[in-house]
């Protein structure tokens, strides 16, 4: 049953998601000794984009027009399945973890074919890289989930994250730490952040995510920008749910602690982006496979421990 709580927090998620990139940018600006754009910049950008009319390339087919809508709604669908730290998600059923991962996968698939639809060589390169890196990041994400499913004995995201407790951290600190670090790397990879991809780069040869949306304008771009902010929010909230564990916090502190946790994730991402240079393209697979290694070691530790 859908509770009022879940719906309220789902709407809250939708409203707050674009603020996360704003916090990251503020942290980066702080490191650079600048004022930086306001935290709410992405809201202004999206509002501006929504008022404009779109321009399409002559080679573009209907895929290009369809893709932003698919990306937007598949991400929205994934958001319906992700629990809001302590409250259940709007939808839960056994195995929704796979649906959540592959709803995001559908979004990615459409972004990739739309990038190849427009006949630009740069966008094709970006698409190829995106597919390679997300294929490498997927096992890491699922191995981590497998361990958590094994720990909590529940197959739905809501069940897994309400089943996590500080007890698990006390019993198996190594396993939980490995998963947290590997998910952090997955988060950076999936959301096109440094060291895998640079969200601010303006050289087509080095871009991954940005190059794929290069030809979009107006409402389409707005939808995609919003969807990527929402995706960042979802991955961050999974990470917060994993590290802080809802059971450890008294219920009246749930919302403040969760918000602080999300800010902390944004600050960590900002610090990573300010202190680490983007990796060379040939070194990126090593980095992502490394996160898979962490998750697989966690899995082996878990299996051997049983």
């Amino acid at each position: 049953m859908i509770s009022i709580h879940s719906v309220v927090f789902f709407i809250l998620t939708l409203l707050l998601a674009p603020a996360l990139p704003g916090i990251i940018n503020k942290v980066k600006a702080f490191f650079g000794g600048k004022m930086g754009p306001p935290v709410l910049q992405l809201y202004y950008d999206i509002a501006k984009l929504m008022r404009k009319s779109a321009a399409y390339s002559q080679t573009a087919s209907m895929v290009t027009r369809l893709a932003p809508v698919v990306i937007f709604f598949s991400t929205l669908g994934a958001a319906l399945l992700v629990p809001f730290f302590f409250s259940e998600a709007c939808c839960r059923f056994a195995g929704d973890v796979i649906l959540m991962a592959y709803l995001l996968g559908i979004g990615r698939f459409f972004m990739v074919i739309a990038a190849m639809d427009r006949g630009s060589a740069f966008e094709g390169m970006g698409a190829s890289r995106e597919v390679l890196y997300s294929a490498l990041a997927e096992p890491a994400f699922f191995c981590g989930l497998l361990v958590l499913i094994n720990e909590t004995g529940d197959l739905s995201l809501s069940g897994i994250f309400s089943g996590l407790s500080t007890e698990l951290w006390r019993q198996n600190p190594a396993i939980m730490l490995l998963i947290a670090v590997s998910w952090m790397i997955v988060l950076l990879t999936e959301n096109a952040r440094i060291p895998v991809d640079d969200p601010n780069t303006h050289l087509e040869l080095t871009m991954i995510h940005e190059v794929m949306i290069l030809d979009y304008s107006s409402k389409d771009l707005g939808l995609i920008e919003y969807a990527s902010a929402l995706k960042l929010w979802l991955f961050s909230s999974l990470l917060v749910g994993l590290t802080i564990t809802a059971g450890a916090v008294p219920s009246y502190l749930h919302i403040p602690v969760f918000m602080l946790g999300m800010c902390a994730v944004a600050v960590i991402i900002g610090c990573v982006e300010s202190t680490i240079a983007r990796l060379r393209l040939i070194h990126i697979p090593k980095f992502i496979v490394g996160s898979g290694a962490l998750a697989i070691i966690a899995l082996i530790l878990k299996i051997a421990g049983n």
Partner: protein
Amino acid sequence: MNSIATLLALSCIFLLGSSRLLMSIRMVAFQGLLLGILPLAAAGDSHLSLALIFLSLASIALKSILLPWLLNKAMVDSGTRREIEPFISFGASMLLGLFLLAVSGWIVDKLQATEPVPSPVTLIAGFYLVFSGLLLLITRRKALTQTLGFLVLENGVFTAGLSLGSEFSVMVELGILLDVFVGIFLMGIMLFHIDREFDHLDADRFNELSDLEIAASPDEEVTE
């Protein structure tokens, strides 16, 4: 003990992916340090004996200070390039490493079906160190990195032996340490001589040493 085994496995993944010789040597030194602590962790507080502490200190001194220093010296003296030159790409060797990790997990799982192992995670780490040592031996081009692979292999044997909970006598372990020391020492001297003789440590090019005349193919003879 499990966390030490985890760190050992992680250091192996790092070794497989690292492209810098100096970092690799330091990583092997770190493995030596972990291996020094491992017997103490395995014995627990109750069985701590003077001989054990001596063994652990000797192992740390040898594996994480003396041998890395020796390898470092060999590297600097021979003037080898700092990059490692693998036969297969780093990404591929890391993926192979993950596969080997799964294989070692599978082997230990099979072993446990016949007889329970006191510390399965450490045994997995031991097997994994042996496998990745072998992988390092066969996929790296330089004689120096092959020495590192040999060291990792030996570390793996040590870890596996420890995880089986066998009563190990200090004399035997000291003997093995001495063997390893002499082995690496000889390798160091050999590296030095190889370098003086041929100006490089590229093991791939040593096949030119072969005494056998390589039979020229028929059409080459025609052209000559």
